């Protein structure tokens, strides 16, 4: 897969040093959480796991370029790091993976990370790939109608870009210049189907012209590039200049989900190449280079992450499954 260098507009503020370290903290925490839920899956405690490993920079870099509490987030199953960056705790998230009582997004009625959070303006209604794209456009339409300057960002994979809904939604958003950011996490695979069998081009950004909207490709393992592209898209959206496609080129480190066996279709070499683009390591090196992880800061961050994850694991281990007493509720208002 050809990786296009980041094309970022001028005039966007780079994240502050503090923010960079905060993003690193979130990345480390997310990676630790991700590894833990895979372990829980192998132990039979988590029925299904989809991993954000390799996608963390794209997810955290974009969230941090937006205004949590005001903007709207339409995510998909791979967006674990979006949840972390929005402020969900590892315990809350792990209640989802273990389907335990008190799970905040869906009461454990749904797959992990699915459901919604009203306070966070977070929506992940379903597992049906691509359906969130028109929904996000509708959210942006609502914000615009009320004259709010909230932005809606919608996350989706390269696979989702093939769905008719993606086309219809982008076209509508373009016509009405809606404040929406189409953030594609292009990892080159829809489960086993490689990009070359999903499209005859290298990525989706070349579609932007067909809708008459701007599109940008960024290295999705470079959190700075993602942050900047998203910031610029957000500014454009808030200024009434309409939607942007931000295509982030990322890697999927692991099988599609814990149910998948990627050795059936993925070359070992391809995987090894992919692992060289580890967003956590890349940011770590950038921060060390910039002197932003002085002394034992890095190991403090990592130990703290481990501690939180351990605590969360203990909590969810002890938590009960939900009672089935009210499983018929909330069908109608």
């Amino acid at each position, binding site marked *: 897969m050809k990786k296009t260098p980041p094309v970022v507009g001028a005039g966007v503020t780079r994240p502050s040093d503090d923010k960079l370290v905060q993003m690193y903290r979130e990345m480390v925490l997310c990676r630790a959480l991700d590894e833990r839920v895979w372990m829980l899956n192998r132990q039979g405690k988590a029925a299904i796991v989809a991993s954000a490993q390799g996608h963390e920079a794209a997810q955290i870099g974009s969230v941090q370029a937006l205004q949590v509490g005001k903007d*709207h987030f*339409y995510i998909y199953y791979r967006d674990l790091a979006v949840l972390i960056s929005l402020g969900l705790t590892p315990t809350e998230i792990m209640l989802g993976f273990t389907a335990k009582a008190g799970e905040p*997004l*869906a*009461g454990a*009625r*749904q797959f992990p990370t*699915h*459901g*919604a*959070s*009203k306070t966070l303006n977070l*929506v992940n*209604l*379903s597992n*049906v790939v691509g*359906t969130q*794209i*028109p*929904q*996000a*456009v*509708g*959210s*942006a*339409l*609502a*914000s615009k*109608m*009320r004259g709010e300057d909230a932005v809606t960002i919608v996350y989706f994979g390269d696979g989702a870009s093939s769905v*008719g*809904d993606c086309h*219809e*939604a982008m*076209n*509508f958003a373009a*016509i*009405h210049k809606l404040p929406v950011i189409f953030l594609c996490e292009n990892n080159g695979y829809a489960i086993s189907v490689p990009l070359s069998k999903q499209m005859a081009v290298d990525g989706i950004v070349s579609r932007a012209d067909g809708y008459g909207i701007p599109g940008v490709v960024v290295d999705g393992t470079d959190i700075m590039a993602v942050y900047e592209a998203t910031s610029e898209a957000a500014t454009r959206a808030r200024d009434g200049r309409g939607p942007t496609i931000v295509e982030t080129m990322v890697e999927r480190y692991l099988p599609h989900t814990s149910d998948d066996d990627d050795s059936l279709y993925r070359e070992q070499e391809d995987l090894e190449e992919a692992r060289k683009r580890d967003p956590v390591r890349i940011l770590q090196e950038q921060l060390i280079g910039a002197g932003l992880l002085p002394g034992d800061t890095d190991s403090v961050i990592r130990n703290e992450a481990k501690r939180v994850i351990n605590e969360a694991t203990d909590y969810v281990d002890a938590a009960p499954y939900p009672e089935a007493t009210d499983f018929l*509720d*909330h*069908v*109608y*208002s």
Partner: protein
Amino acid sequence: MTVQTVIEAVRDGMQEEMRRDQSVFIMGEDIGARGGVFLATDGFVGEFGEDRVIDTPLAESSIAGIALGAAMNGMRPIAEIEFADFIWPTVNQIVGEAARARYGTLGQMCVPMVLRAPQGGGVRGGLYHSQSVEAIFAHTPGLKVVTPSTPYDAKGLLKSAIRDDDPVVFLEYKRTYRLVRGEVPDEEYTVPLGVADVKLPGDDITVITYGLMVHHCIEAARIIGNEGVSVEVIDLRTIRPLDNDVILASVEKTGKVLIVHEDTKLLGVGGEVSAIIAEHAFDYLDAPIVRLAGPEIPAMPFSPTLEAAFLIDTEKVSAAIRNLARY
């Protein structure tokens, strides 16, 4: 009271709600300057502006999906599908997503949207402008499905649907649009969802129906009434939720049931109504539960002779009632 057609009542219902509540808006094909292909939104763009009366591209799946997203973000969209025959692309967003939004978020999200579509035949619409689609949506928990038959009901039910916090599929029989006239109050009113209406009381036979067929059934009931058989006509009005109480009370009184709908028979609404009766009023039944429904062909053919062969009319209903009376 004013005498109106169904389409006028639909238009007034939407207009009143749009005046009443800024969060109500309407989106669909040709609803702007054109005023809708049936003129349901005639004059709306002038009164409410292009922001609240949105002419969309021809793309039904996204009409539904965008309305759903707007509904989850505080608006009350009315999404118009030009003909029910073109509603299939919305199934993914309506059956798959909107219906489960509340359940799947433990009540955090609600979907106050209405999906309106004209349906049914008798207008020389052929295979693709005559379809009845209620059964497919009515199978889905989480949705409400409404099929009005009169101007009074159309307006009152539509206003309730717009104010409802759940997704409502609102199916108007296009044949009734200009054909059926009726009195509509000048003052504000609504008709509650989920409540069937006894359109004609009777004692000997219960006829259960909805939509356009209500009118044929009432006519048939009057004819049969003159033959000495007293027929009760129930208009379901809402297909989901079904009003079991009204259905069962009537059956317990009459003991004989005819169910009539224009949609094809197998797995149609009539099957469900029959099953409810066979389970809950079995001991009251004096005869088989009979269904009169569209024949098992994919939809209504175009040529007038073929369309007539498909359609249920007063005569066919009368014949079915007479048969049942004889049992």
